[in-house]
């Protein structure tokens, strides 16, 4: 196939081969879509694969594209705001669908519906690749002469700038709208803009089915190398609110505990230890994002449950013994110790730590051991230290 000349050539080639095997390239090329695959873990976030159809459409050779950043397709009139939004999506590791003015190699601009989505490692939840599908947006019939057409394009630029062409207008974009001077002009001409770069349902469907096919192909070929990928993050740390460094520190604490985030709606679990999962029988993705009360069941005393909620609302530590249920619905007495944990600035409660203890296991403890209460306190201690430390270091890197 091809050999890269770039110094990062090997890394770029391995990016695809080591994850999906060499054979995936041919299969991907047979797909009737314009798309690129980029690797955010390589410096510069380069394109590591470009489909045959895309090359045909853009007029570039494969060698000219591989190793370059996706920016290669943008030009003078590509809207900066749209490009920023794509960057933001990359940072937040989420998918995005947005219209964009791209350029062919010979300088001809063309509208596309750009649909980008992350591909995750099944093993640790890291983003392995981003796939960027480019669906050409069929030019609409022009209403009048060339003068009008020019204005139309400009307004459309503005429209993209203002976010009107996107399916969803997110709230922060709306907030920013007010700061844009020619908002009124654009707003009055909504209809106009919509006509200019409207994306038909057919095009959206096209993007979605491309995504489906590419994903299933990548997933299938990742089975050949054993390094599975998936479209959803199925791993703990990254889905949760705790960062990677805190996640690592917390991973060293062997006892059963969860961290909940009082700053999020309904105080969801943002970290669950392996021992917690073992004790309750749930998988990690089944508990993250949920309020702890899902462990309760028919016989759980509601007032005890309320005590836990109150403790969190008032930011106080508390100890309760509550009847909980495992995933298989078998009940167990859970002696729960709940304590607020401050962040490194010391000013506010960053998390609550809930340390579980299955009281039915008391007798198995050795003679020469610490009291179970002490073991619980030691988990609180370890969590406090971990949160405080990761916060200190985070402060620095900012």
């Amino acid at each position, binding site marked *: 196939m091809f050999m890269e000349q770039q110094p990062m050539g090997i890394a770029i080639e391995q990016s695809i081969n080591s994850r999906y095997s060499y054979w995936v390239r041919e299969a991907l090329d047979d797909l009737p879509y314009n798309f690129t695959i980029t690797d955010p873990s390589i410096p510069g976030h380069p394109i590591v694969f470009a489909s045959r159809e895309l090359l045909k459409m853009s007029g570039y050779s494969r060698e000219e594209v591989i190793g370059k950043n996706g920016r290669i397709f943008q030009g003078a009139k590509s809207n900066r705001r749209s490009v920023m939004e794509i960057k933001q999506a990359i940072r937040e590791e989420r998918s995005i669908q947005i219209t964009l003015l791209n350029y062919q190699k010979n300088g001809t601009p063309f509208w596309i519906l750009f649909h980008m989505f992350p591909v995750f490692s099944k093993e640790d939840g890291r983003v392995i690749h981003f796939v960027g599908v480019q669906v050409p947006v069929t030019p609409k019939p022009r209403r009048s002469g060339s003068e009008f057409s020019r204005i139309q394009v400009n307004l459309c630029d503005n429209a993209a700038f203002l976010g009107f062409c996107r399916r969803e207008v997110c709230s922060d974009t709306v907030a920013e709208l007010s700061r844009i001077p020619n908002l009124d002009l654009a707003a009055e001409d909504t209809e106009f803009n919509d006509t200019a770069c409207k994306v038909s349902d057919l095009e959206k469907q096209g993007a979605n089915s491309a995504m489906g096919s590419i994903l299933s192909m990548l997933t299938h070929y990742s089975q050949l190398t054993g390094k599975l990928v998936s479209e959803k993050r199925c791993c703990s740390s990254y889905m949760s609110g705790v960062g990677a460094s805190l996640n690592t*520190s917390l991973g060293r*604490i062997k006892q059963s505990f969860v961290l909940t985030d009082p700053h999020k709606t309904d105080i969801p679990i943002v970290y669950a230890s392996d021992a917690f999962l073992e004790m309750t029988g749930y998988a990690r993705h089944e508990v993250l994002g949920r309020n702890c009360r899902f462990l309760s069941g028919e016989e759980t005393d509601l007032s005890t449950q309320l005590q836990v909620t109150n403790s969190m609302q008032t930011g106080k*530590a508390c100890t309760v013994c509550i009847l909980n249920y495992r995933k298989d619905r078998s009940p167990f007495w859970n002696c729960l110790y709940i304590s607020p*944990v*401050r962040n*490194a*600035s*010391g*000013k506010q409660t960053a998390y609550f730590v809930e340390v579980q203890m299955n009281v039915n296991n008391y007798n198995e403890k*050795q003679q*020469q*051991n*610490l*009291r179970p209460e*002490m*073991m619980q*306190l*030691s988990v*609180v*201690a*370890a969590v*406090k*230290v*971990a949160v*405080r*430390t990761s916060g*200190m*270091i985070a*402060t*620095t890197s900012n």
Partner: protein
Amino acid sequence: MLRIKRVPTVVSNYQKEEAEEGDGFTGGCGRNCMRDCCLPGAKLPLYAFRKHDKIESSEKKDPPFAFLDSLLLGEWEDRTERGLFRYDVTACSTKVIPGDYGFVAQLNEGRHLKKRPTEFRVDKVLQPFDGSKFNFTKVGQEEILFQFEASKDGEVEFYPNAPIDVESSPSVVAINVSPIEYGHVLLIPRILECLPQRIDHESLLLALYMASEAGNPYFRLGYNSLGAFATINHLHFQAYYLAVRFPIEKAPTGKITEFNGGVVISEILNYPVRGLVFEGGYSLEDLSNAVSDSCICLQDNNIPYNVLISDSGTRVFLLPQCYAEKQALGEVSPELLDTQVNPAVWEISGHMVLKRKQDYDGASEDNAWRLLAEVSLSEARFQEVLAIIFEAISCAATENESLPDEDEQDVEDVDDALNNGSHQNAVVAGKQECIVQH
């Protein structure tokens, strides 16, 4: 006589009361203290560590629980719950200061409140124990986390409720009620013997064993001599947990010599405070002996110093200092004095506990460096002190190993040491002087 005025650190709740009452303590008690009045029948957890011969010991049987993570931090959190600390240290803002070294700053406004400055004599490193002053036998038993001693049968043992055996004078680990980080404790060797703040072989080895038992490079022990910002003249080491590397631990070192028992002695380079690093050794005792011989030499020569026991007890920093002396002589700039930072072992190691918000907000590597540079001995004085140390420890080592025979090898080692370290001007150790000295 040189004195400085400073706000003493309140390490025990009973120290505070005492200060408020004015005059010392008047028996009869009921405070559950560590003295004859309260000791009969008293019980405390006892942790017996396994004495091992080698620093690297792999065939250890798994202890029932983790010494540091479970016992020490768990007991500490328990005291937090019981409200024994003067403030919540996790409510004190902390950060790593941007820069090459990563000095750590903490804003601790509460630590020195409500105490009047007291005069401290700083020109005598060794002072006799004074039972009328605050000492650790006056702390409440609730402030003591556990007794800490070597196991008799060679395995880790733990007794949740062990009687306090007055005869064997237990060493204990107590909380510092004014913690500067999470898990801040005091190791008080043979507490009932009422030893003054003075390093001896046995106590330093105990401190090394504690670091080793914790087995975590982020749990360090420190020692301040009198005249180097120790405020209590009752033998104690401090320790706490802070999960970042200290700047002094990152500083490069230049090997001066390999000493008896395989202990390597190096000089700290590119760091504002001049000092020595001891590491290696065939056993923990070898390392401990080299360090304690050096400490004993410094205190006998009335040179104030600080000690940092790092890397789980495998690396020990020895830092002679002269800040308090300069302060007493009026040689420290008012700007530095205004910060009220007392450069004890933790500050010297790079963990700056700041008392004023403006100092915390404006904390920079330059500021930290400027302060620590004042703490350090001058190069000339440092070389003098090195010569004194090397002379003393080579003699001590020779005595330990081969008295009354003379050992040529050792003499060569000493010469090498001095030459390698380019201390040609130093006094060359000779046997005669050794014998005279000891």
